[in-house]
């Protein structure tokens, strides 16, 4: 009995609350007569398409830089990589793989620069990251506006130059991952390829955290002075963590877009960082301890919640955008709650 109680305590109240809430919503959906199979299929896809973005939060927390508020920096790298692959007319697997590869390259390079900046502002990474993220997004708005892309899918249909606000990937590599080895059980579609890829990434990052570099990052994140005393190059370790975070953010948006169907340019990346943050915090990560399972559990919970809550609340409050308001309140509320928890365990 005690054992069970301890297990429950370890699992944590926030997660139990959210699971209970999801159950309530699912029961509601059933009562409303919604298509449950479609609802669950949607949820699975959303979980897969968002998980790498949440995974991107992990290395930054690991090195003690907190949540990567500047995830948008990684995301614009991914957008650029994706648009380039479309510009070159690469289809299907070659298109998505090229996009992924470029995203990782751009993300790493830019991430090193971002990391160098964050090393200068140690202690206020989250604040600076937030400002820098927004600045980069707006800077890139100018770039999208003037970028010399020529593929008609990318540029505005009339007018000739400049990138559209949403660039469809439907003709190129939409749902390549999702469809790979996909199968149906009782009306529920399992996006096998998407999950394989996403879990492979999680596994690679897991291996990384258990490697020498990973351990170094963890120790640096927990106590930089201690690590420095034993001859660790603290700034370099932080650079690795932040660059990895940025690269994963960059990869994340490519995976997101192939499933979602569009690259969202201009102000699109601005709010992209919030849901992954909420996810990893909801999964149980704190600023002082983060594990892969926090990423996986958190993404499952928050994406299922958001996906199922939308149609249910839409039905309850028809013809209003209350459902969207509801979604925003929940995801930001969870960030607030989890952040207050992260700082409140000192006593």
């Amino acid at each position, binding site marked *: 009995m005690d054992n069970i109680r301890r297990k429950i305590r370890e699992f944590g109240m926030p997660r139990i609350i959210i699971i209970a809430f999801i159950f309530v919503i699912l029961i509601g959906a059933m009562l409303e007569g919604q298509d449950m199979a479609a609802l669950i299929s949607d949820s699975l896809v959303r979980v897969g398409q968002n998980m790498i973005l949440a995974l991107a939060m992990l290395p930054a927390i690991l090195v003690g830089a907190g949540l990567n508020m500047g995830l948008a920096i990684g995301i614009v790298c991914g957008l650029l990589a994706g648009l380039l692959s479309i510009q070159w007319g690469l289809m299907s697997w070659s298109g998505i793989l090229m996009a992924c590869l470029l995203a990782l390259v751009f993300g790493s390079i830019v991430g090193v620069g971002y990391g160098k900046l964050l090393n200068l502002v140690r202690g206020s990474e989250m604040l600076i990251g937030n400002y820098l993220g927004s600045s980069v997004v707006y800077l890139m708005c100018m770039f999208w506006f003037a970028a010399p892309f020529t593929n008609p899918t990318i540029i505005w249909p009339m007018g000739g130059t400049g990138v559209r606000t949403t660039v469809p990937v439907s003709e190129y590599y939409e749902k390549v991952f999702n469809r790979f080895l996909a199968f149906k059980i009782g009306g529920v579609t399992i996006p096998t390829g998407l999950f394989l890829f996403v879990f492979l990434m999680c596994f690679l990052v897991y291996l990384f955290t*258990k*490697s020498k570099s*990973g351990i170094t990052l963890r*120790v640096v994140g927990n*106590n930089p002075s*201690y690590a420095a*005393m034993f*001859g660790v190059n603290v700034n370099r370790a932080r650079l690795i963590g932040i660059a990895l975070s940025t690269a994963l953010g960059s990869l994340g948006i490519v995976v997101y877009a192939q499933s979602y169907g569009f690259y969202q340019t201009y102000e699109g990346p601005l709010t992209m960082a919030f849901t992954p943050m909420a996810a990893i915090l909801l999964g149980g990560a704190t600023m002082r301890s983060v594990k892969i399972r926090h990423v996986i559990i958190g993404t499952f919970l928050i994406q299922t919640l958001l996906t199922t809550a939308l149609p249910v609340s839409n039905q309850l409050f028809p013809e209003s955008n209350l459902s969207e308001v509801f979604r925003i309140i929940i995801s930001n509320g969870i960030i607030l709650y989890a952040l207050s928890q992260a700082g409140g365990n000192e006593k």
Partner: protein
Amino acid sequence: METNAVIPVLSIQNVGKAYGENWVLSDVSIDIMPGEIHAICGENGAGKSTLMNILFGMSVISDTGGYAGKIFINGEECRIASPDQAIAKGIGMVHQEFMLIPGFSASENIKLNREPLNANIVSRFLGRKLKTVDFAKINSNSKESLDKLGICMDETQMVDTLPVGYMQFVEIAREIDKENMKVLILDEPTAVLTESEAEIVLKVVKRLSSIGISVLLITHRINDIMEIADKVTILRDGRNVKTMPVSETSPGEIAQLMVGRELDLNTIQKRIVPIGEEVAMSLRNFIVHMPGEMVRGIDLDVRRGEILGIGGLAGQGKVGIANGIMGIFPTEGEAIVFGKPLKLNSSKASMNAKLAFVSEDRRRMGFAPDLSIALNIAAPAMFNYNQFFRRILFFEQIDEKGIDAVARQYIEEFQIKCTGPQQPVGTLSGGNQQKVCIASVLMLRPDILLVSEPTRGIDVGAKNMVLNTITKINRELGVTVIFTSSELAELRQVCDRIAIIADGQISDILPADADSEVIGVAMSGKRR
């Protein structure tokens, strides 16, 4: 005044304080008469600061279950629950770390939150908080207080531009500016001052007593006590060893009482590896810019296989030496380790030279608080020797089992009290944290081990454990040890020679069995 002379202004009776099971102060009784300068001295951990915290009603005391015993002020019993109450009862305190607002002038600091106010139109309607501050009066009042102290300074100067000694005066002036000030507690008032500044502070303290304010002087410095105190109380291990008039004692006696019992260290083994003639480390004109612990150019040779003690008073620079050698604070000069010059200002180079360091700043430098005992013990060896990794296909992975086994071994050997190797180190008690630090350093198999204040703030059991371990690796493996400590008893017990540091320089190098008085003299900076 005649009647007051019989009633002590402050009387502490059988006061005690326990943190959990650990009694840090027990059954202490002290009477302080009006106008008396009463010194309280003792080693680190003797209970001085706890006593002070009780008197000033600091929240660490009430948060951890209050204190035992009684306190009387002017013969009236009272329980002091907060600093506000302490101030209201006429107790003032000057902390070791200055509590001044840098961007304010001296006079503004002195009158802080007690500013003289003038009514204006707005305040008439909206209350006292909006009254105008009378700056002219602030300055004149402050001037009075400073004059009372016999100090001539510009009261309008910003405090951050003042020399350290003057900051001390501003603090004292602020305290005596409070109208009913009866007892002023001074915590190590001369620790961070130069000799000439210290002299003025002592003069000021004397002046305070001449205007009827009692002073409770907490200090390490025996010279200060001899110079100005009327009575001295010596604390050791939380007990009042002796209270006596200063006129009836000598510096030697005070030092002896402070150090007191020898640690009941297990019999120190004979050396398996004898002390060699070879020099393990030599420092030449070694300068370390460590704030508060400046090392101002020392020459020192450490022989292979010896335990060299570094002693001295707080703030004199003894702690700076090891920090400089390990590349933690900016360092100049020359260091040679086993014949090879050591690259300074690089922790990596120091690690490569097979030096290892147990820092005096355990909280900040000792361990990673949220990581497990196992990982903390293994991390230094992982960083420097690539130990505890195994290859799985192409990936080099941490060897969790290996780490776990080593951690279990040390938990057993050092009797680390914990739930298991996975418990985060931050949740252990101080003594057990220190054991983890030492274990992690031993994993490096150093040639030269530097340990600074290894027993600070830990209980007697852990203390013995730590000291035994240090002597053991010295005796059995011939590891050279540089042992920095403020506790003389410890230095005597463990070391072969003791270098005494005063004012950032070596004032003497003495054998471990040197007379307390001789050591005391060396600590005060006088050279033989």
